[in-house]
Every structure is written in C-alpha cells, then in structure tokens.
C-alpha cells in the first residue's frame, strides 16, 4: 500500500512548522539560516509529492530550481554572516542593531 498524498503533505507541514518556529526561537544567525533551509526542504517535499500523484515532471523540475536558489542563498547568506562576524565578533542577531539609532 502506498502512503497517501495527505501523509506526505502532513510531513511537509510538520517540518515547515518546526523550521518556522526555529527561525523565531534561534538567535544565532547560522541557526536561523539552517531553519530556513529546513523550510525550503519542506516545500520541496510537497512539490515532489504532487509531482508523483499527478504524474507530472514539472514539480520535480522546480524542486531543482529551488535547490539552485538555496545554493545561491547559502553563498550570499554565509558571506553576510562572515562579514557581520568580522565587524561585531558575534553572530547573535540581537546585536545586529547598528541601524537602530
């Protein structure tokens, strides 16, 4: 017996929820970054599940696009984190308040 489409969507929703809660709870910029990656993966899972159940290749193709965008995001995001660490010697997002005053 195949697992139903609903169970794949439920898994994806649970992973997305964990990622979204993690983005708010984490104060470490790297931790937030990893939680965003988790949310992207949850969305990828819905794409692949729908692609399977509608027998359409488009979903899997756009998973590939999302992965490329995630790779680009990793390069730029980690660059920003390193620059921030160089200037402030921390990556705690609460300390990222230079623009406040």
């Amino acid at each position, binding site marked *: 017996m195949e697992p139903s489409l609903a169970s794949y969507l439920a898994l994806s929703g649970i992973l997305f929820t964990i990622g979204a809660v*993690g983005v708010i709870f984490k104060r470490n910029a790297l931790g937030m970054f990893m939680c965003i990656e988790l949310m992207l993966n949850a969305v990828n899972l819905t794409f692949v599940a729908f692609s399977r159940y509608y027998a359409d290749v488009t979903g899997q193709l756009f998973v590939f696009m999302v992965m490329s965008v995630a790779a680009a995001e990793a390069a730029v995001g980690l660059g920003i984190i390193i620059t921030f660490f160089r200037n402030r010697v921390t990556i705690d997002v609460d300390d990222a308040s230079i623009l406040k005053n």
Partner: protein
Amino acid sequence: MANDALFYLFAGLAIACAISMVYHKNPLYSAISLVGVFIALSCVYVTLAAPFIAAVQVLIYAGAIMVLVVFVIMLLNLEDDRPFNRLRYLYGVGAGLGLILLVQTLFIFYAVARSPKQPVKMDETVGRTLNIGASMYSEYLLPVEIVGVLLLMAIIGAVILVRRLNQPEIEKVVEDELTRRNQADEIGDYRISL
C-alpha cells in the same frame, strides 16, 4: 507495503532530526542534525519514485550546502547560544505561530484525506533523469538560464561581500584615519592655546 513502512520510518527520522536541530544550542550539533533531516528526506523522495531528486538532495544539500555551513562554523569559532534574551515575547510569538501552522497542517491533512479519491496516475518513470533532463532543456529552458544567471550573481556577490581590503588599501585607510585624528588634535590644541 514496504513503501509505507519506509515512508513512516524516514518521516519519523526527519521529524526527530528537525526537532533536535531546533533544540540544540551548539550550531555544530544543529548542522549535523540538519544533515540527518536531508538524508531522511532523500529516502522519502525514493519512496516517491524520484531517484534524481533524491540524488541531487544528497549532493547539493547534504554535500555542498552543509559543508559550507560547517566550514563557516569552524571559521567563526562560536560560543553556544545564550539561553535567554531580552526579546522574551518572541517565544510567545513563536509558540503561537507554531500552533497556527500545526492546526493548518492538520486541516490540510483532513481535507486531502477526505477529498474524493481521484484516479492516481502511478507513472513510475516520471522521476527518471532522462525525463527531467528532456523537459529541462526544452520546455523549461528559460528558468534554467535564469537560475544560471542567479548563480553567477551569487558567486560575484559572495566574493565581494567576504573580500578583505588588500594591504595598500588598508594602509591608506589607516593613514587617512590617523591624519584626521591629528588634525582634530591640532585644532584642539589651537583652541586650548587660545
């Protein structure tokens, strides 16, 4: 039957690793847990008859992105997250958001589970690399090219962001700063001598 058992096994593994990722304060433990999530998800993709996406998941996410993250953790030499912060109301916001999203997930689960069963086309060949490549370079050529340009922009942006000034530029910046301070001092002296 086997598919079902494998799905529940790897779904449980993915959720457990995701919770462990959010729970751990040390970024390195979080990164290792996230690798666990990625590998479990790639096994879930195999149960969805998408072998190409499963392979790419391991290569790009577990291979490339997480190695980059672990390298950055190593470079930055971080301490653990401090346990409490001054933005405590965020914990309430986070719990509320999580609750809303969970309720939404349950709603979607019931809505999809109760919807009338459509005749599912169980075409196992959709996820083959040949099919994906064929549609990638014919029907979806423009998105592929846009993604290529995006990756180039990301490379250039990352290099420019992380670049250090080279030695003459640093010396010039330091010299400018010193002359500026000297001038300020001279002006101060002048005022004092008056």
